């Protein structure tokens, strides 16, 4: 299982910096998801890995091999495309066999390996079908078999589940995860769907405007986001903006004049006194009807019963809305005035995004 390494890889399209200098290491057998909105550079990084795009600068290594100059056909990479890109004029069998034929395998070996791959994706016996006879989910699995059968060093996925309905998507997510656990191939998966990222990944790299904002396990990113962008992109979040008044030890204080209060929480790295910041209150952190400090007056305006949890919309003094979630068995919530509280150790004080200058400075220092 080969590791993948990016060293200061960058790419621009005209004036657009699609990918800023990015250094990233993916361990052999790891499942890494590139998560980000469109235009964040995740697909650019994927295409550079596959060899469909040449980086303007930097090196890409797969295992011991520097593949930066290598054409896509010599990289031994299996890719599952957004719309599958199955060959419409070939049967299921021939689609899967394509990579083996290009490699000059013998007929009997092709037959054996294609059938094995089709069985792996639970499509045994579908070899003779035409592509247009298959459902979207089946086409997706053919695409997966076609990428797996060549025993690639790295498996790449480019938002492959976008065309499937929600129910099927969940099913396929788990299937891809099981397959990864069984086969253990180094995998890079591109998506803008946070749930998809959480279900499948060992680590997630959150990208924005051509750079990796933060990389870590799903839990890392959710519980210890580096900045307000990551916090907002992964999971539901209530972000209350203000200015950082004090940083001491692990904690920081954020003054929020609109609410006439200061919020205390665990300080994220890179926080500086006097700069704007945001307090992250996850919906499950907020306690309704609390009477211990910190205590905030609010009005419960909407209560949505979701089975095991209740989602409550709260309006604060400055008409700002925040959402809170709690387990249904903690008792009923009634609309009307109430008080909110939270344990300071579950609140995080974050820098607002990370801006260009600080990033550039940090980069210089590390190199």
């Amino acid at each position: 299982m080969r590791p993948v390494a990016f060293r200061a890889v960058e790419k621009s399209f005209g004036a657009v910096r699609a990918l800023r200098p990015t250094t990233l290491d993916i361990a052999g057998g790891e499942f890494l998801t590139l998560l980000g909105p469109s235009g964040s550079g995740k697909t650019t990084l994927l295409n550079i890995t596959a060899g469909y795009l040449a980086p303007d600068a930097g090196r890409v290594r797969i295992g011991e091999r520097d593949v930066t100059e290598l054409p896509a056909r010599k990289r031994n990479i299996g890719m599952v495309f957004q719309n599958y890109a199955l060959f419409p004029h070939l049967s299921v069998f021939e689609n899967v066999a394509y990579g083996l034929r290009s490699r000059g395998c013998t007929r009997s070996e092709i037959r054996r390996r294609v059938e094995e791959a089709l069985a792996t994706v639970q499509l045994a016996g579908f070899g003779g079908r035409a592509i247009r006879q298959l459902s979207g989910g089946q086409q997706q699995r053919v695409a997966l078999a076609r990428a797996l059968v060549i025993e690639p060093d790295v498996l790449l996925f480019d938002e492959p589940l976008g065309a499937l309905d929600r129910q099927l998507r969940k099913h396929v997510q788990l299937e891809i995860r099981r397959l990864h656990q069984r086969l253990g191939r180094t995998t890079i998966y591109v998506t803008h769907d946070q749930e998809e990222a959480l279900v499948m990944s060992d680590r997630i790299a959150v990208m924005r405007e051509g750079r990796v904002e933060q990389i870590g396990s799903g839990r890392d990113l959710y519980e210890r986001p580096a900045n307000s962008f990551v916090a907002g992109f992964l999971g539901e979040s209530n972000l209350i903006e203000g200015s950082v008044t004090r940083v001491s030890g692990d904690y920081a204080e954020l003054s929020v004049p609109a609410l006439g209060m200061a919020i205390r929480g665990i300080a994220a790295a890179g926080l500086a006194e006097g700069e704007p910041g945001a307090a992250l209150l996850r919906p499950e952190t907020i306690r309704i009807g609390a009477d211990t400090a910190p205590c905030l007056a609010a009005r419960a305006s909407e209560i949505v019963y979701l089975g095991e949890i209740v989602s409550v919309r709260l309006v604060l003094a400055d008409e700002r809305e925040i959402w809170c979630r709690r387990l249904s068995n903690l008792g009923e919530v009634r609309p009307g005035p109430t008080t909110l509280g939270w344990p300071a150790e579950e609140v995080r004080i974050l820098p607002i995004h990370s801006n260009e200058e600080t990033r550039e400075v940090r980069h210089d220092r590390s190199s």
Partner: protein
Amino acid sequence: MPKAVRILLHIGVSAILALLVLPAFVVVPASFNAASFIRLPPAAFSMRWYGGFFQDPEWLSSLATSAEVAALATGLSLSLGTLAALGLARLGGALRTALYGLFLSPLIVPTIVTAIALYYVSRPLGLVGTIPGLALGHTLLCLPFVLVNVGVSLHSLDPALLRAAEGLGAGPWRVFRTVTMPIIAPGLLGGAVFAVITSFDEVVISIFLSGITAKTLPVKMWETIRVEFTPVVAVAATFLILLTLTLFALLRLFGLRQAKPAESLS
């Protein structure tokens, strides 16, 4: 729309279509005429002039010349036109528009001008009166049809398919042979059909380049009809109509069948 209006519309449209097409089919009954002159309606049914056509070595050799020229011109324009279409698809902006216009110009420039120009160029090269000379001239006229047909097919080709094939280890030639070509096959077929028909039908360039040694079928028809008005010309014309109809029928049959999976892509 009221029913009466619709019926009137149908009749009107049918009449216009008939007016467009029927004159061409007049030659069919004329070719079965027993008389020595083209006459309508035919005086008596006879296969006499079909016999005449096949027993006359001049007619047969002109048919052979036409077939050879058409085959060469089709092959040439198909290869050049496909390469041009592939190249144009990779270009962008003003250059692509300019080159596209250049490739299509033989359709716009009056054929007689092209013919005279070709005559001047071909004579010193010894190409007048030769099959390669005629084929080259016809290629000029066939090229735009191939370019347009293949170009449209290429447009429906998902570029991700080419990347997928390359990623699976296929080199450029293998990608073209196993992915591009099968998918643009309807365009290749359409281009080929238009090329064959254009070449078989071409008379202006052919008159200039035929000389006396390489007469194509339309040139032979043109010469015959000026000196003798026999129904053998109608026989030749019938063959040309038959060829056209057969080729278009083939195109419908295979072109559509091939196009379907490509459409489901988008």
